[in-house]
């Protein structure tokens, strides 16, 4: 009814309908609505013109703001294919029509000309489609002058549109007459333009240099011009990868912000992101929908949490959700394959990051390499990051201000994902809803991965080190047991042969000399077997990381008894010196015993110059609270190790093989014990290593 009434109203201004049909005859004001209301953001209006230039095969787009003159002006020029009068009439003057649309009938669309711009135009995927971009000029200023030509041989077609002419709602749109003429020159651009299009907007509606009112948005410039620069950066980013022959040159006679250029860009942000997760939706070989993911960490994050720099996850089938994605997500992929990435820089704990550490946007959506508005721009939270934060009342670990990303779709692979006419999002349909659900589920997955690590940030560093050490010790324990089992097999067989040898050596019919020789061989081999079995036992029966009250004197006596036969076999004089405290301290006794034993065994086996009598000194230092033991050998030293170096950073390239592994174990054990183990000195005269295990640990009780 409303439509009919409206139609009748317009009908009264001029009867153009047949007797038995009605037709829409839009009011001139519709133009104002389209331009002003549908293109909500002036930034996006400028971006629309840039897209038009790109679609026209331009290699360059110039944007010139003249904000200090009166009236203010904005000129957007491109060196694309340009238009003649007929082309302008068919395209520009017909709102809603787009020659770029796949729906455009053949014959209506002009073939790209045979020049550089035409070749570029053919090679590019068209990024505008709805034919609405031209109306965005009405969003920017009071009047627009368009200059365009297809060839240097032509004059420039000049069209002047005064948008106030469309304010009269009683006038039909077709009753607004747009004047045009042909001119020889275009407005000054500092460049010589042979062909293309220049759009000059006069009396700009907004003050592009002014600071924007309201609360500052993290990562967003405080001025509209600054934000435009950021938006253009974002738009260009994927284009730079796909088509390097396209540049936007932004200039203004008023520069509202220092350092506007070179402000944070996605490229620089991406290079320094602590977490980057790439995801790719597609199908497996059987055609089943799946998502593949890889999580990359910065070197600092990997080091801090003991994680790998790059972690590839097993592809997850969407039709068989795993426990890794417990959140509800579609089990199909009607939206078809797409890919994307999430990036996150966790702000330092306990400290608000400065504005320049924040990124400018959320998760952006690109189609064919060109940004799709408004996803991820300004306040748009299509992935639901902010919403999750609100739900959890600030208990989020992924902070929206430093999280960003991009998702890529394309027309060929995702035909069901189409824009709404107003450039304000995807048309809501089954595919787009599913698509958004998938992206949100990916964020959920990403957040859980990141959260699991970042929770450790709230722990004290020594607790984190202890937890990491415990994990590593568990892994070492499993591996050690496996190796121990394998090594015990030949040792068992060797033991059996030794029993046979013993039996032979005890035969009464053997000559005494032979008997003595066999006994000597048997005894010698038995000692080596005992030594090997003890070593293997150390790996097979890796002690439990259990904190117990331990008397230092007893601990050292136990270690001394363990290393004594090895020292004897190796001919090394091992001296235990210093006071042996009977003070009980809390420590993972068995682990510390094993670690100290390992240090001493390494000292026993240290390489020494020929002729030097091997000596190892184990000295307990006086300390009322902690276990402090220095292990000193008179070996040749470890090359390149400075005093104070943590043992975990010492690379020991031993020919004996087991030293390096032992040192790794010692470092892990000590880290787990909240202690330290450092090289006091290492030179040609020998190496001294200081082990310190704290006797009291806050919050820990015996038997934990």
């Amino acid at each position, binding site marked *: 009814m409303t439509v009919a009434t409206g139609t009748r109203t317009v009908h009264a201004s001029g009867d153009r309908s047949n007797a038995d049909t009605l037709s829409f005859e839009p009011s001139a004001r519709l133009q104002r609505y389209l331009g002003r209301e549908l293109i909500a953001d002036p930034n996006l209006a400028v971006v629309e013109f840039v897209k038009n230039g790109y679609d026209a095969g331009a290699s360059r787009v110039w944007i010139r703001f003249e904000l200090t003159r009166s009236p203010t002006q904005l000129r957007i020029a491109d060196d694309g294919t340009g238009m003649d009068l007929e082309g302008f009439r068919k395209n520009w003057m017909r709102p809603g029509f787009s020659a770029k649309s796949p729906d455009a009938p053949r014959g209506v669309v002009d073939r790209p000309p045979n020049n550089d711009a035409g070749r570029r135009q053919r090679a590019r995927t068209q990024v505008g489609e709805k034919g609405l971009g031209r109306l965005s000029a009405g969003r920017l200023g009071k009047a627009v002058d368009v200059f365009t030509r297809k060839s240097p041989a032509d004059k420039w077609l000049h069209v002047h549109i005064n948008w106030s002419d469309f304010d009269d709602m009683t006038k039909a749109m077709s009753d607004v007459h747009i004047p045009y003429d042909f001119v020889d020159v275009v407005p000054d651009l500092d460049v010589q333009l042979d062909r293309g299009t220049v759009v000059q907007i006069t009396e700009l509606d907004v003050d592009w240099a002014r600071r924007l009112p309201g609360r500052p948005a993290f990562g967003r410039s405080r001025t509209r011009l600054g934000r435009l620069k950021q938006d253009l950066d974002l738009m260009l980013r994927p284009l730079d990868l796909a088509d390097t022959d396209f540049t936007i040159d932004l200039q203004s006679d008023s520069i509202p912000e220092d350092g506007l250029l070179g402000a944070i860009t996605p490229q620089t942000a991406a290079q320094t992101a602590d977490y980057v997760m790439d995801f790719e939706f597609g199908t497996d070989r059987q055609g089943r929908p799946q998502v593949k993911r890889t999580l990359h960490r910065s070197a600092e994050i990997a080091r801090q949490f003991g994680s790998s720099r790059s972690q590839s996850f097993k592809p997850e089938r969407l039709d068989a959700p795993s426990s890794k994605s417990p959140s509800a997500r579609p089990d199909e992929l009607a939206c078809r394959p797409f890919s994307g990435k999430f990036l996150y820089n966790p702000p330092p704990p306990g400290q608000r990051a400065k504005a320049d550490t924040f990124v400018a946007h959320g998760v952006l959506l690109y189609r064919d390499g060109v940004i799709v508005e408004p996803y991820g721009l300004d306040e748009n939270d299509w992935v639901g990051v902010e919403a999750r934060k609100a739900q959890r009342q600030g208990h989020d670990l992924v902070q929206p201000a430093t999280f960003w990303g991009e998702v890529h779709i394309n027309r060929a692979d995702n035909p069901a994902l189409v824009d709404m006419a107003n450039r304000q999002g995807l048309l809501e349909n089954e595919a787009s809803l599913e698509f958004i659900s998938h992206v949100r589920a990916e964020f959920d997955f990403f957040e859980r991965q990141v959260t699991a690590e970042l929770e450790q940030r709230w722990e004290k560093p020594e607790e984190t080190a202890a937890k990491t050490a415990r994990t590593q010790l568990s892994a070492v324990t499993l591996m050690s*047991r496996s190796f*121990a*089992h394998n090594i*015990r*097999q*030949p*040792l*068992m*067989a*060797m*033991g*059996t*042969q*030794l*029993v*046979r040898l013993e*039996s*032979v050596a005890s035969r009464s019919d053997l000559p005494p000399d032979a008997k003595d020789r066999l006994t000597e061989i048997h005894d010698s081999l*038995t000692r080596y*077997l005992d030594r090997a*079995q003890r070593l*293997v*036992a150390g790996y*097979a*029966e890796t002690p439990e990381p259990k904190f117990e009250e331990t008397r230092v004197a007893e601990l050292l006596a136990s270690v001394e008894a363990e290393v004594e036969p090895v020292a004897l076999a190796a001919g090394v004089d091992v001296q235990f010196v210093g006071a042996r405290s009977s003070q009980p301290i809390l420590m993972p006794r068995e682990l510390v015993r094993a670690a100290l034993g390992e240090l001493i065994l390494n000292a026993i086996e240290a390489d020494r110059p020929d002729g030097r009598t091997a000596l190892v000194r184990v000295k307990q230092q006086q300390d009322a609270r902690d276990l402090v033991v220095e292990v000193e050998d008179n070996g040749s030293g470890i090359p390149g190790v400075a005093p104070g170096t943590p043992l975990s950073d010492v690379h020991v390239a031993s020919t004996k093989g087991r030293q390096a592994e032992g040192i790794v174990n010692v470092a892990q054990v000590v880290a787990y014990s909240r202690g330290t183990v450092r090289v006091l000195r290492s030179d040609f005269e020998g190496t001294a290593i200081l082990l310190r295990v704290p006797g009291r640990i806050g919050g820990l009780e015996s038997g934990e």
Partner: protein
Amino acid sequence: MASALLIDDDEDLRTSLEAAANDEGLGLRTTGDWNEALALFHVFSPNLVIADYNLPGSEHGLRLLAEIKSLRPSVRVILISGVVDAAQLRQAEDLGVVERVLSKGDAVATTKALLEEIRRAEETFSASSDWQAVAQAYVQGRAVDQGAFEELDAALRRQAENRP
């Protein structure tokens, strides 16, 4: 004939222990395969079965030994292991499935203990002549009939698949 059966996937150990037993005039039958172990057990009916914890063909030695024990409760069963720790060893003994658990961690002591066990088994072994005859037939027959078995098996397969 053998009064004892050793089941272990380590060939060196099998060879060494068998040689050590033979040195002392003791018989020891060995195998590294769980299925063959069952067959040997049925044929020789040994007094003593010694088995490793991890064996190809069975989940682990305990399950194997429990099955053997259920077949003939009077058999003495010893578990040897290079991976089971002291607490687990005690637990295995407490279960009653095995009479004794020995660790490969002390090779000499375990070897001596096993030889002593084999000696005892030999002393108490009272296989009848019939049993010996059956056992001998099994060993010889197996050696001779293996090829024939394969041939028959292949022929039956062809027949089932209607191939010439």
